[in-house]
């Protein structure tokens, strides 16, 4: 029996809260498309429902999650994002975390394994719309270099991951001391000519970590260095000898 208008209207609130069975949701969704008054009711109730999660008590984010997400996204750089193709996921190390015993320690979403299969298939077959250059880039693991701090920055370190030679690198800092008040850290890229080019400023979080995205051509870059400069924008040329520096070539 086809439900009447009143019984469908009664289900608009459960619909807004996602509390219907799939078939009920389909029925109510179709009705809302055709019924202006129920559509208006849904707009009103959905607005209230959308506010509910904004009241949630804040839980501190794990610092590693930021670099995991940005690295995975960067692995599918601009121009390579096809419709419905998920981002490739970089094989980043996941630190130990407690879980419920019934849960697997690390279970990639199903699309991640699909992406891995897709990338492997591209590499094996060498066919399709991808050109040879792109295939090589997709199948090549990102180059990674470790750099260490000295002097006042002894103990600090950074990992430079070159995702795409001509476009993108990620620099993940760890154990960085807090910059003095009014100061920021500034990253420099140094090529064969020895001239440092500014590549971004940052302030590490309370744990001394930060991941900086260098969205520019990094071909020809031989070294990276970090100095402390005036905040919030840094400078166009370093004003001190870097105490965190290393080779990336």
């Amino acid at each position, binding site marked *: 029996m086809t439900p009447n208008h009143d019984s469908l209207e009664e289900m608009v609130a459960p619909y807004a809260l996602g509390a219907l069975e*799939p078939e009920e949701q389909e029925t109510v969704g179709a009705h809302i498309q055709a019924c202006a008054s129920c559509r208006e009711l849904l707009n*009103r109730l959905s607005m*209230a429902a959308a506010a509910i999660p904004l*009241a949630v008590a804040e*839980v501190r984010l794990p610092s590693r999650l930021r670099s995991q997400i940005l690295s995975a996204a960067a692995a599918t750089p601009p121009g390579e994002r096809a419709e419905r193709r998920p*981002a490739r996921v970089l094989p980043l190390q996941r630190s130990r975390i407690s879980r419920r015993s019934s849960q697997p320690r690390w279970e990639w979403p199903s699309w991640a394994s699909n992406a891995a299969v897709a990338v492997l298939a591209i590499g094996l077959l060498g066919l399709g719309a991808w050109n040879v250059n792109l295939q090589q880039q997709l199948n090549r693991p990102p180059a990674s270099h470790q750099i260490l701090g000295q002097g006042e920055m002894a103990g600090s370190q950074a990992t430079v991951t070159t995702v795409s030679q001509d476009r993108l690198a990620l620099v993940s800092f760890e154990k960085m001391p807090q910059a003095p008040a009014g100061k920021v850290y500034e990253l420099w890229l140094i090529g064969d000519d020895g001239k440092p080019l500014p590549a971004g400023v940052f302030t590490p979080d309370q744990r001394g970590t930060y991941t900086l995205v260098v969205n520019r051509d990094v071909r020809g870059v031989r070294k990276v260095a970090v100095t402390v400069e005036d905040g919030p924008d840094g400078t166009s040329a370093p004003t001190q000898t870097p105490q965190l520096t290393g080779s990336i070539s």
Partner: protein
Amino acid sequence: MAIRLRQDADDSDGAIAEALQRGDVAGLERLYDRYGTLAYSVAMRVLGDHGRSEDVVQECFLKLWNSSSRFDINRGSLRTWLITAVRNRSIDHLRGRAAHERQEREIPFDAEAAGEGSNPWREVVQGMERELIQEALERLPQEQRQAVELAFYHGYTQKEIAESVNVPLSTIKGRMRLALEKLHSYLQGRGLIDDA
């Protein structure tokens, strides 16, 4: 009548959306810095498990990244899209459902940012916003709040809720409707929801 939820104290969500559409990772970085904590907090509220919450948040940010070329900022806010996706995916994890079993509903309203301001100001406004919504939820009669929370944070259907609290299904429908109407009215009266 268009109904709009005031989203942020600045209007740069549009700039972030444009950066995402260009495929600029810096846009995703800004989005994460702005809403990562909220997304993770929502996942933790549903799942109560750090590892699974991380999985959900990563999945949703990457889903947004991969579909950002199709995202229409005029159809809804980034925050609403992201938090809705995190809540839905968390419920899927909780109930052992695969993502493809869920039919994602488009955001059924327009949303726009209100005013401009610095990051500290945005944080202040967001803090006030959170307090207001908490207050609105606390003012609901216990049985109405329970119906909403069992659906929203535990993923129960209306029928499951009716069975679990042993009341007729029509009562649960009514409680949900009344709760959402009161929430809307309270937030609208305090300028958090716009009618235009």
